[in-house]
């Protein structure tokens, strides 16, 4: 099966942010219900990778009655191969702040936080300056909303929303049990909306131009545009805004170096797609799309034939072994077993059937790990081992 959707460039995110004051004041003159409806009809889904419908998230949190609620912008961009949020925060920070403020208006929150990745410390002075300017305007229009920045300390797991709350509360960054979900029980146990940087920037587009403009981009189940962080064996690495739903073949046509062997979609926690499946793979959220549809937080890593897929997997597993928070058994021990396991097979210390045991282990991890980290290790592992089994052995 071949995906027919073409690669289409879009240009919304990085476009002019100078009208943020107007977008903000216009938005908060509408009712929260109107804004939620606008978001829902745009079919915007979370751009961090998990793809939860943003309008629904705001709606659920708005429906909980509590005098204290929070809006949190997740800027703990840690997925290997993702570097788009950094650019958004450098280039169009006002869009993000506006998105947060409108969210605060919709759900009834007066405080917003940006959880900024530890490595993005260099953004802090400029962001603080911009926040002061933003808050000054909010005060001027008598809109009660403040934004603070909370610096992360370099742990990948703190990008997981509940681990992020724990970290902000001064505790060890470990994911919580769910339910309860953040819309009920988030930061400080209060109803909380937590959105990715890019998601908030998209809400700006939607509130500025209306839902239709956004909805018209992309394909069914995967509406709108998305930023892609393109890296690896490509002549033009960088950040590109593309409509969702394109086929991977088109993508490789545009960004590949003519010798693309595989593309890792969605970073270390995503899937590896081998050349033979480029045609049948679309980039978008899971739905009833033709062929396979892969979600991504934006990371697209291209590998050409000079790359050893064993080394690629080894690298990912090394990452997970270190970045697992270590609390739950399947993830903590599972990652160590996977890493040691593929090395043992490569060295001939375990026979090749051991790979099947490891594949079963990733199934258990997917079923039983406490959070998305442990659950998604299976993605890269199984897609690499199944498609490049020989490279794991020889």
């Amino acid at each position, binding site marked *: 099966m071949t995906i027919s959707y073409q690669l289409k460039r879009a240009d919304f995110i990085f476009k002019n942010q100078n009208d943020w004051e107007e977008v903000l004041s216009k938005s908060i003159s509408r009712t929260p219900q109107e804004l939620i409806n606008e978001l829902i009809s745009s079919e915007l889904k979370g751009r961090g990778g998990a793809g939860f419908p943003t309008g629904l998230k705001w709606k659920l949190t708005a429906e909980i009655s509590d005098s204290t609620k929070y809006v949190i912008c997740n800027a703990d961009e840690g997925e290997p191969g993702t570097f788009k949020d950094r650019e958004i925060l450098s280039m169009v920070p006002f869009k993000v702040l506006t998105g947060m403020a409108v969210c605060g208006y919709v759900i009834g929150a007066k405080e917003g936080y940006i959880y900024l990745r530890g490595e993005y410390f260099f953004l802090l002075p400029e962001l603080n300056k911009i926040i002061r300017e933003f808050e000054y305007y909010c005060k001027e229009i008598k809109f009660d909303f403040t934004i603070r920045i909370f610096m992360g300390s370099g742990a990948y797991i703190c990008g997981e929303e509940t681990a992020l709350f724990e970290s902000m509360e001064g505790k060890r960054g470990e994911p919580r049990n769910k339910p309860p979900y953040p819309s009920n029980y988030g930061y400080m146990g209060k109803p909380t909306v937590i959105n990715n940087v890019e998601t908030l920037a998209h809400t700006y587009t939607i509130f500025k131009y209306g839902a239709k403009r956004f909805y018209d981009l992309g394909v069914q189940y995967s509406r709108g545009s998305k930023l892609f962080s393109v890296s690896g064996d490509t002549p033009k690495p960088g950040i590109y805004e593309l409509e969702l739903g394109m086929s991977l073949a088109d993508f490789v046509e545009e960004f590949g170096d003519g010798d693309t062997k595989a593309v890792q979609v969605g970073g270390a926690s995503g899937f590896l797609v081998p050349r033979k499946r480029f045609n049948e793979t679309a980039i978008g959220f899971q739905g009833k799309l033709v062929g396979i549809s892969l979600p991504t937080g934006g990371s697209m890593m291209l590998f050409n034939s000079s790359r050893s897929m064993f080394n690629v997997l080894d690298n990912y597993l090394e990452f997970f072994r270190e970045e697992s928070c270590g609390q739950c058994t399947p993830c903590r021990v599972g990652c*160590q077993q996977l890493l040691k396991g593929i090395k043992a097979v490569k060295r001939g210390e375990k026979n090749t059937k051991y790979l099947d045991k490891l594949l079963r282990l990733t199934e258990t991890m997917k079923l039983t790990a406490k959070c998305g980290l442990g659950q998604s290790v299976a993605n890269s592992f199984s897609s690499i081992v199944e498609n490049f089994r020989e490279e794991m052995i020889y």
Partner: protein
Amino acid sequence: MMKKRPVMTKKIKISINGMTVEVKEGITILDAARSVGVIIPTLCYHKDLCIAGNCRVCVVEVAGQKRLAAACATPCEEEMEIFTNSLNVLHSRKEIIELLLSEHNADCTSCFKNGNCELQKLASDYKILKQDFIRLVPFKKYSIDKYSPSIIKDDSKCIRCQRCVRTCSELQGINALTVAYKGDQMKITTFFEKPINDVVCSTCGQCINHCPTGALVERNYIEKVWDAISDSTKHVIVQTAPAVRVGLGEELGFGHGERVTGKMVTALKRLGFDAVMDTDFTADLTIMEEGTELLTRLKRALVDHDPEVKLPMATSCSPGWIKYMEHIFPEFLEHLSTCKSPQQMFGALAKTYYAKARNLNPEKIVSVSIMPCTAKKFEASRPEMHASGYRDVDYVLTTRELAIMIKQAGIDFMKLEDSHFDRIMGESTGAAVIFGATGGVMEAALRTVYELVTGREVPFKNLNITPVRGIEGVREATVRIENPLTEWAFLDGVELKCAVAHGLVNAKKVMDSIKSGESDYHFVEIMACPGGCLGGGGQPIPTNPEIRRKRSEAIYAEDAGMPIRKSHQNPEIIKIYNDFLDHPLSEKSHHLLHTHYTERERF
């Protein structure tokens, strides 16, 4: 970690393995399953602690959900269809146990917890007959922390369930044990990875009681005691704490909270101890000394208006509590009674009073104590505990260690006859027995103090001072003193304000309220462990609120059945004051029975 969810009373219908069940909305799948006799295995779950949901052994399948749910952490919802034994569940659960074993130093035959290990039991239940996963233990630089006289921590046996961390934080409010690092390096450790002995640890041993494996165990002195017993030149005496007699049976075939006092004495005699005596005797002595100390402090405060006098006075029987104070509230050390704990009073008297009476060379006496406690091991090793000129208590064994010795000696405990403690430090009263339960020291002290001051019995039915009994973390009581004897006239109309707390997290509440000036207690009893000594860190494992309740009932039943129930009426106590100590707070008792405390670091 999940916070406690509000209790809801609405009933909902769910199905478990095809059975329709009506449960309270909001209860976990685990509790719902247990209520209908479906057992879901757990490791990180403990009734005393908040939900962690990190071992994942309790996963179950919920119809319509892609992933398995942790039964301990997932609340039931209307119409939920739960399967606890589907193939998916069984396979996943088994694989998780395999993973745990691959990271665990499964050297079971040389493990102190062999036979009472939750991981071992799971491995046995699920028949993990072949371990294909790579053994991870040799790849890690595990260390064994064996520097504490009380607690040994072996990281190679840790399954990272964090029960000890939650215990130290939620029950004790200390956080001596915490989680450090992440991923494969994640471990349970202390401040800057210092030895347990060098950090804020109270040595209470609750972490041991809550550890599912052999990662945390007591330092055991079993071999040393066997050596002493078999040395014919030594006179080996043993004392047993009140709470041991309501716990020991659990290790030896009896149900929870069965009283086995007589059998315990027989067993100790059969083990070869030269004299079997009772810590209860020095518990009575403690009441005499501590009660007098309280009255002296009250007099100094009310009559002399001495600004130096420290009130409230706090009990000093619980060595975990003492060490906690030395770390956390050093500025309040003078509030602690100067009385040694009953164990140490016994030790000091054994090598003086007892040695003299039996005409023994104290150098040849080996003094052993059986305690429900690991902090007692630390206490016995304190440098100041040499009042007799020798180390007052040579070896401290936990209830568990005694049970091991009884098994090693081939004694069929259940068939033993009862026998009595030996004289001259074996007589005791009901007041001493209740030292084993939270509130007991307070109750015993009030029975004696009230009577000393007024000449009448304490005005509670059957001497049961019920307001200080119970399981609430902090309890308060007021006893009004009326018509005292002439020498105590200054106490007429005084309302003696008392507080009782157990578990150090509750102790902190009491201390904070004293520190802030919010409370104006006269007398405070604190026990480091939940439930008091009966829930001590050296008691049989497992422990939970239900087990502690049964042990507590046994303690109060033992008290009710005693012919003498007030410390000052113990004939041996009367005798020791006549023959040896003269009177409470005498010079001799100051030397032998009282002590001082040391400020310690707060990390």
